[in-house]
């Protein structure tokens, strides 16, 4: 896949991938859930699977961890084929597929003990470590059925981290977490990737979340990998295309004034202002035009929706392709 090759260049090319998906396909009956999906994940990066619900993100994850055999293609984790060397491959992996389903009738501690026993070499001390890491020390001896969704999510992360995996796969990890919890998880995953060199794969249908968390985002639609985008945060965004929000008293007059400057400054208008995609140099001009038109400016702020743009652009392009194929 072209996108994959591009990424190799941007991520210093000499690293070997920890996860390789090669031409994965999954069919149920005549329906193709996943199509020719190829991807490489490198140590120390956080990769996002972004796509609408039902795009096939979870099926890809299930194939990655051997829960579902692919109809075609191969999965390698740490160089081991998940089909022929399942145990060696899974030794590298910590995973939560969909919701973290734990044994509700047991305490959190017993759940951790249960999963720890399945991998040789995990000490009781390690169980305490991961408990502390996810901040469940106070409740760890309570039954899981008394936990909130967020606490279960954290217990799920704890069990996935027990054996210090080189790949951590989290399916919709922020489900049920409150904003503070999401922030904690994000910070933790970033630290894990940076300090331990753990490769983290997260799936989500929420753009904003992916943008804050990930280094790269794989955009998935209808079972296919559309493209892989690097997420660069706010720093080196293209200076020629900033999405700015102008908070003004008369949005439609303001937008009109901006349009008069350049027909490319199209923006969406809401009741409090309008957005406009402009080069940085043009911001003072627009401000001036607004003042001259008698529109009151309350604030001008940048919107980091570069990923959303990319996502929408990618999915739109694909639907054109689909149309083209149809004819």
């Amino acid at each position, binding site marked *: 896949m072209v996108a994959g090759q591009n990424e190799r260049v941007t991520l210093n090319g000499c690293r070997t991938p920890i996860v390789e998906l090669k031409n994965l396909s999954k069919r149920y009956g005549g329906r193709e859930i996943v199509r020719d999906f190829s991807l490489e994940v490198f140590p120390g990066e956080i990769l996002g699977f972004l796509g609408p619900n039902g795009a096939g993100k979870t*099926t890809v994850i299930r194939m990655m961890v051997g829960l579902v055999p692919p109809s075609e293609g191969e999965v390698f984790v740490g160089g081991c084929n998940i089909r022929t060397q399942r145990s060696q491959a*899974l030794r590298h*992996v910590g995973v939560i597929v969909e*919701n973290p389903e734990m044994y509700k*009738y*047991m305490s959190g501690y017993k759940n951790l003990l*249960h999963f720890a026993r*399945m991998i040789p070499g995990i000490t009781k001390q390690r169980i305490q470590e991961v408990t502390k890491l996810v901040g469940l020390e106070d409740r760890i001896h309570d039954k899981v059925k008394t936990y909130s969704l967020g606490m279960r999510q954290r217990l799920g992360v704890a069990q996935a981290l027990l054996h210090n995996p080189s790949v951590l796969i989290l399916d919709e990890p922020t489900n049920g977490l409150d904003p503070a919890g999401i922030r904690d998880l994000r910070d933790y995953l970033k630290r894990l990737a940076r300090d331990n060199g753990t490769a983290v794969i997260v799936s989500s249908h929420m753009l904003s979340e992916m943008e804050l968390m990930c280094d790269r985002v794989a955009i998935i639609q209808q079972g296919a990998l559309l493209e892989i985008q690097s997420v660069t945060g706010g720093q080196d965004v293209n200076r020629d295309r900033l999405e700015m929000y102008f908070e003004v008293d008369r949005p439609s007059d303001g937008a009109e004034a901006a349009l008069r400057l350049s027909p490319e400054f199209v923006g969406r208008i809401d009741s409090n202002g309008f957005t406009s995609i402009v080069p940085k140099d043009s911001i003072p001009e627009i401000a001036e035009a607004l003042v001259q038109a008698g529109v009151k400016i309350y604030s001008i702020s940048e919107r980091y929706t570069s990923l959303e743009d990319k996502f929408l652009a990618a999915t739109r392009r694909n639907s054109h392709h689909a149309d083209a194929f149809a004819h």
Partner: protein
Amino acid sequence: MLMLSLIRNENMKMFSRPRSWIFILLILAAVMLPVFASFVNQDDPAPWRDQLEQENAGFRTAIDTVESEPERQRLEERIAINEYRLSHDIPPYQSPWAIVNELSFLIPMVALFTAITAAEAVAGEFAGGTIKMLLTRPVSRWKVLLSKYFGSLFFSAILLAILFLSSLTIGVARHGFAGLSDPYLFVVDGSVQERSMLLHCLQLYALKSVHLLVIVTFAFMISTVFRGVNLAIVTTVILLLSGDLIVFMLSDYPWVKYLFFANADLSQYMAGGEAALPGMSLPFSVAVLAVYYVIFMTISWAVFTKREVAAF
């Protein structure tokens, strides 16, 4: 080593559920009930010799009116045993073993509880979604399944041991240690034979354990084939409870003796016992059960190791 850890996991899960403890309490209660009931009825102070004489007199008058040959034979055997007791000074039912022997009628209860537990073993993990967590560990699927199987067997062994020990405890409480060496009496070819009561009870339990083993395996197969817990439990329990009825209703057909249920209870072949259907013997039943066992195991393994753990 890993297998041991996996089995410990199964036990931890088993005994973390209130259900398992309720089963144990129910068995203890069932063991106690008949004993308390018979304490109440223990008002008859008549010496056991007089009782046996009376019993025999009753049997003798009955024997003349009985038409069927097997019934007559049964009565004759009881008379012979009573006379043997009188002449050898062995009082009836004064031994703790006699209570163990009598309370072994509760073993089907153990079978029922075990079947429910085994039927839930695999289906429960699927229903709860925990199967995803279980099968994404670096442990092969067959090891996971084997540990669950051993876990179910272990639980049935525990229930059986509890039944045996609590029966024995009650027996000792009732009759003291004195009767522990009393013999078990049975009739072979018209003559009364003696054997150790302990041996008799252990043999009874051992033969019933084969029954349990096959039932657990059967329930386990149902559990791997069906994903729903309730479906698995209901199917198992219905087949378990209706087994004797099915055999009875079909007993006119010659192939009925190849049915799993007709052969499941090997204690029918115990000393003095008789096969339920003509043409059956202990080796025959063992062979039939072995074939079923292999079939059940093969299906469980084939289904579990191949199954896709897709979305629910």
